[in-house]
């Protein structure tokens, strides 16, 4: 058996070990990265930057712990950018895991001194409306009346008791929507209902899996920006000048990509070499 043939029948558990090493090692080596944010990431950052101080934004979370490593850094980045700009933030989610992860993100943000010192108050500067089943239909309903869709916030306080919600009756009182989604219902639902039907400008962050499918919405400006996967999250951290897990994970990501590319090339060489031998 030749070298390449032996390689083809390699136990895949050896490959598993190699990829684990490729992912873990860079975590221990501190890198100083220089980022080149994609135009799509810049689009999201810039459109939030241009919002007038004091306007209300909705940040919606459609993701779960399984996709949190990609999305959570984006959520944290968005909270930071919005709080720094003095925007009023309405959190919600069309997945039941979304609001819980948003709470976790809030806690993480408030651990930082800068944000602790802002003295932001629940109900005044931000609220969490929680989850509602029904996907896009919830957004449609919010277009006419937010309290019909969300009579209370996540923990049961009626919306009337939250000062932030005083001037916010429906989507036309919202200046911008930021949607962070890992699947369905998610960004397409927000584009179709909030943007196309109620004309609220929006941008999104999504898992890398769904990013390529959302690019058509960027060209038509249905989305003013898009963060795609961990790269998008790291871009956002770079743009908001607050490094976090996105940038911390990127070196591991680099090495793993390189290893996988090498695997594919080696595998293909082996494939063509053995095939030619077979033909002879």
């Amino acid at each position, binding site marked *: 058996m030749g070298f390449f043939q032996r390689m083809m029948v390699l136990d895949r558990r050896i490959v598993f070990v190699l990829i684990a090493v490729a992912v873990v090692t860079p975590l221990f080596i501190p890198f100083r990265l220089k980022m080149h944010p994609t135009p799509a990431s810049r689009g999201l950052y810039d459109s939030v930057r241009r919002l007038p101080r004091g306007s209300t934004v909705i940040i919606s979370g459609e993701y779960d712990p399984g996709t949190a*490593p990609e999305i959570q850094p984006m959520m944290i980045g968005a909270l930071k950018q919005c709080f720094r700009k003095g925007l009023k933030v309405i959190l919600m989610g069309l997945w039941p895991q979304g609001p819980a992860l948003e709470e976790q993100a809030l806690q993480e943000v408030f651990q930082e001194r800068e944000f602790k010192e802002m003295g932001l108050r629940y109900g005044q500067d931000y609220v969490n409306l929680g989850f509602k089943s029904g996907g896009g239909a919830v957004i449609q309903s919010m277009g006419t009346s937010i309290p019909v869709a969300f009579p209370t916030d996540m923990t049961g306080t009626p919306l009337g008791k939250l000062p932030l919600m005083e001037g916010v009756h429906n989507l036309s009182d919202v200046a911008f929507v930021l949607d962070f989604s890992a699947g369905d219902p998610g960004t397409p639902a927000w584009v179709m209902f909030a943007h196309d039907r109620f004309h609220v400008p929006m941008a999104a962050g999504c898992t890398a899996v769904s990013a390529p499918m959302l690019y058509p919405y960027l060209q*038509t400006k249905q989305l003013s920006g898009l963060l795609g996967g961990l790269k998008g999250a790291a871009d956002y951290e770079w743009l908001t000048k607050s490094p976090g897990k996105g940038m911390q994970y990127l070196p591991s990501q680099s090495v793993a990509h390189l290893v996988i590319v090498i695997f594919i090339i080696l595998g293909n060489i082996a494939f063509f070499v053995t095939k030619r031998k077979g033909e002879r």
Partner: protein
Amino acid sequence: MSTDIGVWIAALLTLGILSFLYKDNPFYKVAESIFIGVSAAYWFVYMIYNVIKPNLYENLQAGHWWYAPAGILGVMMLFRLIPKVGWLSRWAIAFMIGTGAGFNFILYLQSNVMKQMRGTLAPLNSLGNVIMIVGVVTGLIYFFFSAEHKGLLGGAAKVGIWFIMVSFGASFGYTVMARVSLLIGRMHFLFSDWLGLLH
């Protein structure tokens, strides 16, 4: 190493799932069964506290009788579990299907057909526009089934499949990126939160 019992439980469960890589084994199956049960419970509690309670129960309590049909249809949905009256659940299913169909008809036509078509109507004055228009047109021709792919049409379909392959390549790269990110997240948890080797 962590002294938090929660972190230990989380770490053991993580290792239980990862043991599948060696082979399918009881540890993996136990961890997975816990996952299935806990996940169902999470959804259940959220439905009760974030939907049924505020949207149905509290509305009915406030005398908003027009929410009653929703409650009735909802309970009818659960009849599916009882074979004798299972057919009643179709009323509720029909309501959901009808709503979905009505919405989808308009939404997809507007957002994914008309707006996309409008976005493609651009002058041929830049390389980007040319690529976009050629890609959309030939891609649509590839998925056109009423004519044989011969001659001009065949050529166009061939160009279309190249575009589709490039976009699948992008999807491939992005999907690999997503999977790796999730692994990094888990590894970071094990080495930082649990073992405390990383900061």
